């Protein structure tokens, strides 16, 4: 389904029918440079802890199929719903980058026990990845306009079908995550992870978004503490909870649990900053978030540009992205963002020192230092 097939009348009345283009910054984007320090460090880590089993649940989804899920996936592919891009990123786009969260948890557990990673730890790593995937999938849902004649617009049916699969797909992953966690026999883990989900959703409600779900910058958002709060909720929380849970599984004392929790938070923030910086390391032409760190730092000193962007707050796709891109490159926003990344890498290293100095820890350190270079 392409935009042109939608009735002109609907287009005029309801702009929402254009399939939204969204920037979901998460751990390193795979669509860009394949070989970089991060990927290299990640593959080395894999050699140490093995490969986190990739989405066993999702492939089961398609194979043992008493509920015809495969049929729905095929139908979904025929539509053009944003969730497809999300799922592609999560499933097909190479084992390396998209399993980073799980990998980090495995490294940490390996480091603390200095022993081969247990099955329980692997399960935990997979669960954290599942929850992250569920969150991404639920984020892909498109708001549909009201009062539309359903028979008229084929495009609307595609959106609604895609939404349905997104809702159920995310719910399926969340349900499986809970079932998985309940087998550990440690209620605190469930409490931690559930709390992380609560915080993620609080993060989602925090920022004002345009109709496509892109964040609108404002006086509030260009404060870097706002950025840190946002990403603590949206990314740091889950990784923290994963790390702390891993230490609980490994029966570690409380000071290690706390160190792990803080390590998770700062690692997530460092990675987020890294990911946002990388957008600007390549040529312009792509959409990016106006609430990303380089942009925020720039806008702090360029209110005129902020007001320019805000003019289009209903539909940020109308903004001249090249203009903003070049302005950011020309200013010192990028530099400050790199400092921010460095700050969180340093904090992470500090907490990492509480873990035994072995291969696991070294591999983790390597990953962190990969974030400091281009």
């Amino acid at each position, binding site marked *: 389904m392409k935009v042109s097939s939608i009735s002109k009348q609907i287009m005029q009345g309801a702009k929402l029918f254009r399939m939204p283009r969204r920037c979901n910054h998460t751990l390193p984007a795979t669509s860009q440079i394949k070989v970089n320090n991060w990927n290299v460090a990640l593959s080395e880590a894999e050699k140490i802890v093995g490969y986190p089993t990739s989405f066993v649940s999702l492939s089961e989804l398609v194979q043992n199929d008493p509920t015809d899920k495969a049929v729905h996936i095929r139908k979904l592919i025929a539509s053009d719903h944003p969730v497809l891009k999300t799922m592609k990123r999560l499933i097909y786009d190479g084992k390396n980058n998209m399993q980073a969260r799980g990998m980090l948890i495995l490294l940490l557990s390996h480091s603390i026990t200095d022993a081969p990673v247990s099955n329980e730890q692997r399960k935990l790593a997979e669960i954290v990845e599942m929850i992250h995937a569920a969150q991404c999938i639920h984020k892909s*849902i*498109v708001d549909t306009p009201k009062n539309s004649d359903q028979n008229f617009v084929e495009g609307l049916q595609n959106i609604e079908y895609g939404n349905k699969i997104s809702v159920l797909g995310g719910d399926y992953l969340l349900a499986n995550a*809970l079932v998985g966690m*309940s087998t550990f026999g440690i209620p605190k883990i469930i409490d931690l992870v559930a709390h992380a989900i609560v915080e993620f*959703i*609080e993060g989602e409600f925090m920022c004002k978004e345009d109709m496509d779900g892109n964040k609108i910058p404002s006086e509030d958002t260009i404060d870097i503490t706002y950025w840190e709060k946002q990403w603590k909720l949206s990314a740091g929380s889950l990784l923290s909870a994963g790390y702390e849970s891993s230490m609980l599984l490994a029966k570690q004392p409380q000071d290690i649990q706390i160190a792990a929790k803080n390590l998770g938070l700062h690692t997530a923030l460092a990675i987020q900053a890294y990911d946002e910086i990388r957008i600007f390391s390549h040529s312009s032409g792509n959409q990016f978030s106006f609430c990303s760190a380089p942009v925020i730092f720039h806008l702090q000193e360029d209110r005129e540009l902020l007001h320019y962007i805000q003019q289009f707050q209903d539909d940020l796709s109308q903004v001249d992205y090249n203009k903003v891109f070049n302005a950011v490159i020309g200013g010192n926003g990028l530099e400050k963002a790199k400092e921010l990344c460095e700050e969180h890498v340093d904090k992470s290293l500090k907490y990492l020192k509480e873990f035994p100095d072995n291969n696991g820890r070294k591999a983790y350190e390597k990953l962190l230092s990969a974030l400091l270079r281009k």
Partner: protein
Amino acid sequence: MATSSPFRIATKKLLAGNGRSIVSKSGAGNCTWNLDGMAARSMSTLKGSSPEQRRNVHHNLAFNSDPAPKRLNVMENLVSDIHHSLKRSDTLLNEMSVYYFNGEGKFIRPRLTGTMAGAVNCHLGIEGDAELERKQRIISMVSEMWHTSSLVHDDVIDHAESRRGYQSVNDKWGAKRSIFTGDYVLAVSVKLLADTQNPKVIETMSQILSDLVNGEFQQMSNREDDEDRFQLYLDKTFNKTASLMAYSCKSVAELAVPETRPPSPIPHWAFKYGENIGLAFQLIDDWLDFVASADQLGKPAGADLKLGLATAPVLFAKKEFPELAHLINRNFKMEGDVEKAFETVLKSSGLDETKRFAKEYATKAISDIKELRESSYKDELRRLAESTVERCS
């Protein structure tokens, strides 16, 4: 025509059989009333009300009667406790998350769970254990919260415009935020569940979430064969409705029974009761979808049919009227399908068979708990099972 409708017959029987007055101050927002008053009120709500509203009246007839004072308090505080647990600084999230917990639900699941807890505690002679009751109450809260969050997701999936007579959450605030709201309610309730500190119970309850999702997928599937189709319907019904009741009942029992070898059979009795009552409940719900609509003078069409769903009355009717197969297979999508299916069902013995089937499950449910010690809670469990079916002649 109007005077002989099934609904009126049912009410007359209820009136004839139960002369006592009914006092109900449940948190569901119902006022004090006696049977006659209730019937009168029910009659007057018939005109101009939606099929869903009429179903609510049917349900309320069944579930609002002579509750023990203790349970009254449980229901009253339930809503405020749920609100409290969902409290958050973000005002929009707060507003959206409590939107469906406005006290106007039927609270069937907490009622069942709370009553089962009472019956089991009585049987074991351990009433008055505050810590146990706190944990059992958590299960009641969680059962209602999970039910409600699934309603939120269902409404997004079905593009529902209204629920319980109000604007639906997705209609008011959009699909994406509604999904996140559902996830939020789920996450908060999972935290509460963790607070029971009982891994076994957490494991039991978590099965529900998996069943709920599988049920939705099953609802989207089709089967060719009659027997397959009916089995799919039952599986789906278990997953979507009975599972929550079964595992919640099992959980409150698991919390109460001591660790023994061999393990106590009580959680299993509780599970079976919940399962059978859940199946009976859904069968009657499917029955009501036809009957309540038929009451609306001259406008036939059940909500389930409109959604393309072939429920028990249709599946039974197909045995007498095989031509329904085509309509079922195309999910009643063609023009006139819904009306034709509706009329055919009413002509057939599909509704009677559905009711008979429901009665069987209700009877099973009562037999499942027969070995529990006699108590007012056990009486209530029996009454709940009976009234699940009795609310239709």
